[in-house]
């Protein structure tokens, strides 16, 4: 399995808390192809603890959101803002244990919105959390006022996004 290069990597100093390799306080998530969409593997340490030994639920939301958002970027070549997200916590996730988050695109896109789901699985494949979310795609030009991007960064990122979509026809781009 090969880690997918994110278009944001053209920005030498992007600091996304979820997926940047340049943010020492972040999660540094990387993404791999998955038959259903994309996935990320992670193992969190005690910086992200809630109850003793248990991963903070907010972090689980971050990881699901990050995986679903990057699914749209990687499979559809669109950047998108999260509009809404529902999280369901099935079982406590433990500090220091490996987990996988798998994100999928749902059928029934309407009004230009993307609908997605995510599952967090433990090492045995048991579901620990699920999420559903809706995303609104945007063009970098339209969101320019809300993004801290220089002109050359905007151009480089736009070019990277244009060549990112692996397959825009299959339900999950698989």
């Amino acid at each position, binding site marked *: 399995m090969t880690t997918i290069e994110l278009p944001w990597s053209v920005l030498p100093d992007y600091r996304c808390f979820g997926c940047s390799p340049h943010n020492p306080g972040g999660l540094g998530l990387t993404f791999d192809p998955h038959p259903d969409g994309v996935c990320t593997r992670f193992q969190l340490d005690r910086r992200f603890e809630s109850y003793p030994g248990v991963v903070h639920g907010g972090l689980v939301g971050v990881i699901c959101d990050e995986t679903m958002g990057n699914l749209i970027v990687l499979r559809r070549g669109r950047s998108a803002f999260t509009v809404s997200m*529902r999280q*369901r916590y*099935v*079982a406590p996730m433990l500090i220091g244990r490996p987990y996988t988050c798998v994100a999928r695109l*749902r*059928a*029934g896109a309407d009004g230009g919105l993307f609908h997605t*789901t995510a*599952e967090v699985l433990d090492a045995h494949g*048991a*579901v620990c959390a*699920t999420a*559903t979310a809706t995303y609104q795609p945007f063009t970098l030009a339209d969101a320019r006022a809300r993004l801290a991007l220089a002109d050359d960064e905007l151009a480089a990122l736009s070019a990277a996004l244009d060549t990112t979509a692996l397959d825009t026809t299959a339900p999950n781009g698989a």
Partner: protein
Amino acid sequence: MNPPTTPTDITDITRTVADIAAGEIGGGVQLAADTDLRAVQGVDSVKMLRMIAKIERAFDVELEDEDVFGISTVGGAAALVEQALRERV
């Protein structure tokens, strides 16, 4: 839009829900529509939520939390799925 293999008839929905629940419980358990799932040995709240997660994914529906925690039987879960599918059309 339903995936082509997603059942929409209550009988088929019930059968699929029973298969998912039995798979999650394991041990070759046989479940009827009126089986009290929470009374089945080995079924706890986590196992119930895992069943629901698989059911939601199989039918591509979202069930309300209040409904989920009220589910006690296969038939009850199937009825919620049928309602969610109807509301989606």
